[in-house]
């Protein structure tokens, strides 16, 4: 009897908590979207949470007429290149750490994971100086390098744990079929890590898409800057165009939302089922 009641409570509590969390995550975005439709006067006169008076797209037009599209292009290039390199490097490292036993492999893994502890901003000055001395300042490569580096520890961690789950027999069967270590990685582990790779791609993609500090420090010209810096264009020393900033934020978030909506299904589409008895 008691058990049944507990069951009922959870049946109510879980949706309520879910709705609460949905509100926490979506309300700010709805606020941003509404704000982006207001005029500057409106934001000063009307109460904070008031709905926009009309469906006013002038902020968007203003943003799109500026350098937004250049920023978008830069972001797309830098982030997609970084994510591809991250997936390639981290999956290779993960395969080696998960399956090839060599001297100090465990210590090496621990060292890579320790990289997650290093506060990102501590590395800002050295990275800036290195970038300058290598002549990469204000180039896409100058951003891609640090982006890959800061994303590797967590990616290696996720993929190593993932690849440890791949049944050992598959590797052995591949060896019997004539695969060396690289072919085992390329033909077996990489395709089977699909869900892990999507996780890594999405996690890092979102993080890097929103990355501000490195982009701010390592680039200077509009031609090279990425999306998070677009906000900066509408932020003066004494005044800021809040609705325009909100329009930039909405437009910046849109690609992520679209990509996530498409990519989510792929994550769910786990390929591991059926490799073993089941």
């Amino acid at each position, binding site marked *: 009897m008691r058990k049944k009641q507990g069951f009922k409570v959870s049946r109510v509590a879980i949706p309520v908590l879910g709705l609460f969390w949905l509100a926490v995550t979506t309300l700010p975005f709805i606020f941003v979207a509404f704000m982006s439709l207001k005029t500057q006067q409106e934001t000063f006169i009307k109460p904070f949470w008031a709905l926009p008076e009309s469906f006013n797209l002038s902020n968007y037009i203003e943003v799109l007429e500026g350098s937004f599209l250049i920023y978008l292009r830069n972001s797309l290039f830098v982030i997609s290149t970084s994510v591809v390199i991250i997936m390639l490097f981290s999956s290779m490292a993960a395969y080696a750490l998960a399956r090839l036993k060599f001297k100090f492999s465990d210590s090496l893994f621990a060292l890579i994971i320790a990289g997650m502890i290093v506060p990102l901003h501590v590395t800002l000055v050295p990275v800036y100086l290195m970038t300058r001395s290598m002549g990469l300042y204000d180039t896409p490569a100058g951003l891609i390098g640090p982006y890959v580096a800061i994303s590797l520890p967590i990616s290696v961690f996720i993929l190593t744990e993932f690849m440890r789950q791949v*049944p050992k*027999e*598959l590797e*052995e*069967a*591949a*060896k*019997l*079929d*004539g*695969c060396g270590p690289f*072919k085992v990685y390329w*033909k*077996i582990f990489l*395709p*089977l890590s*699909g869900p892990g790779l999507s996780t890594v791609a999405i996690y890092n993609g979102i993080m890097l898409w929103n990355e501000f500090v490195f982009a701010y420090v390592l680039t200077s010209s509009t031609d090279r800057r990425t999306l998070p810096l677009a906000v900066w264009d509408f932020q003066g020393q004494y005044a800021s165009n809040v609705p325009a900033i909100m329009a930039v934020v909405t437009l910046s978030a849109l690609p992520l939302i679209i990509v996530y909506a498409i990519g989510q299904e792929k994550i769910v589409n786990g*390929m*591991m*089922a*059926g*490799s*073993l*008895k*089941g």
Partner: protein
Amino acid sequence: MTQIILENVEKRFAKLTVLHDINLNIEDGQFCVFLGPSGCGKSTLLRMIAGIEETTEGALTIGGEIMNDVPPAERRVAMVFQNYALYPHMSVYENMAFGLKQAKTPKADIERRVNEAARMLQIEPLLDRRPKQLSGGQRQRVAIGRAIVRQPAVFLFDEPLSNLDAALRVHMRSEIANLHNDYPEASMIYVTHDQTEAMALADKIVLLRAGPDVTKKGALPRLARPRTLPPSCKPVCCRLSRLPFNEFPEGDVGKRRCGRSGYQA
């Protein structure tokens, strides 16, 4: 030329010796079963022959060639795993063709061999499916098919039937026996802890025993005499089997053979 000879073979994991001084001769085309309780090292021995596990000491010869340092793919062996180990991201056809592709076999040849094996195992309609769309018995057939297409000198089976239900197990057992008839020149090694399976399939049964090394106590010379079960062996056999065990006074067994199976250690 599919004879397998093991000479003084040992296997050590770090300091732990799991297989002591194994001497074994499996003739051309013989069906040999490794029988023993779990943890006795029978799978390890099989994996050493496959080349997945390194041989710490001794010589392993297949078809007159020393194979200790030969990579698994070049040993002309094919293995069927207990859990099938089919590549989940490939279709049945790709699973069976994968090894041949790695060996750079011509495409037409691959197609012919895969189709032939599929016809033999009656899995032709399944060639486009993924492993997860197959039943246990079908997966087992695909795993056997993957072994057949490689036209190996030696088939290795690692408890291939233990994941199937009882009825299917008996059925697949007879298919494996048929396979042995279809490829009389290939040797087969089959690992199991099921005595009935061993009795049904084997030309030769190798009994492995878990526990301390008996060879040091001088038991091996007695064990090695075929069809003679020394007292030290009896508890192993009795523990293995729930079936009643016939006991004969030493020297008497030769006159009263039971089946074609012989005991050897």
